[in-house]
């Protein structure tokens, strides 16, 4: 019989027992902690492994942040909401209330989505005046190797796409964000929004079709140094 279990250290131990129950060999398989599944990282974090949490945060930060940015207008607010989401997650995991049945990615995205929607509703009731343009340089590690030009193109692409998503009907936008950035299945979206799975699928279909139409209507951008009008 072979028992296979993980320890807190970055290695996996495999114990093999013979028919009398004596340990016949112990095999240590070194496994890089960054290769662990989300579920394993959560278990390690709950037992005090901070590195596991760091990997979880870095693994999911961009997708969660993007989903927040598609709901709220301001990057500073989005960062505050991202922090609040992970702080809520810390309290839940450390408080022993984390439900291991679901996916971590869906769970953290749902927390972020709910916080972003709450903020959006509050903002609607009490709008604040924005004094400056939001566009600022990012120093995220994921962009660290990009050139300034690549960064600018990425920023512009994001801004264009965000504008297109904002023009979608609210129910289509909601399904799109939940499926794409919150990593929820259509059944999970249907349950969360109180509609049938066919309705959720239909909304996603129209969202993609509408986005495709909007993309097709976008003017082509040419390098003006090469093409004169």
């Amino acid at each position, binding site marked *: 019989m072979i028992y296979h279990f993980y320890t807190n250290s970055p290695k996996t131990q495999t114990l093999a027992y013979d028919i009398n129950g004596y340990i016949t060999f112990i095999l240590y398989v070194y496994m890089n902690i960054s290769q662990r599944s989300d579920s394993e990282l959560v278990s390690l974090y709950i037992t*005090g492994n*901070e590195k596991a*949490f*760091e990997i979880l*945060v*870095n693994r999911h*930060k*961009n*997708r969660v*942040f*993007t989903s927040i*940015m598609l709901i709220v207008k301001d990057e500073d607010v*989005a*960062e505050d909401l*991202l*922090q609040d989401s*992970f*702080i809520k997650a*810390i*309290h839940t995991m*450390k408080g022993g209330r984390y439900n291991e049945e679901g996916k971590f990615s869906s769970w953290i995205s749902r927390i972020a989505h709910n916080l972003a929607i709450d903020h959006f509703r509050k903002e609607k009731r009490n709008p604040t005046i924005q004094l400056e343009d939001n566009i600022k340089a*990012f*120093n*995220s*590690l*994921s*962009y660290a190797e990009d050139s300034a030009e690549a960064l600018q193109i*990425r920023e512009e*692409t*994001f801004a264009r*796409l965000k504008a297109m998503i904002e023009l979608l009907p609210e129910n289509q936008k909601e399904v*799109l964000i939940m*499926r*794409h950035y919150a990593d929820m*299945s*259509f059944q999970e979206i249907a349950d969360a929004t109180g509609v049938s799975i*066919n309705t959720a*699928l*239909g909304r*996603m*279909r129209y969202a*993609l*079709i509408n*986005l*495709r139409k909007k*993309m097709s209507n976008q003017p082509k951008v040419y390098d003006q140094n090469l093409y004169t009008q």
Partner: protein
Amino acid sequence: MIKTFTHNELIQYVYDELPNDVKTNLECALQTDDDLAEECAELLISKRSLERVSKGPRQSCISNILLYSKTFNMQS
């Protein structure tokens, strides 16, 4: 007889949520049904555009989260 697929099944296929047997049948249908293939291509283009766009928070924001966790861990 060739099965007719619904728009919703096509969306499930694009997002890899179709059961394997239905997926195989749909892939066969895509080879013969031009309208279905065209709609599938349009949906995939939109989906990939969304996948390409991702925005990240500043490193200081991530550092704050990790610091909070460490502090919380020491207190508990």
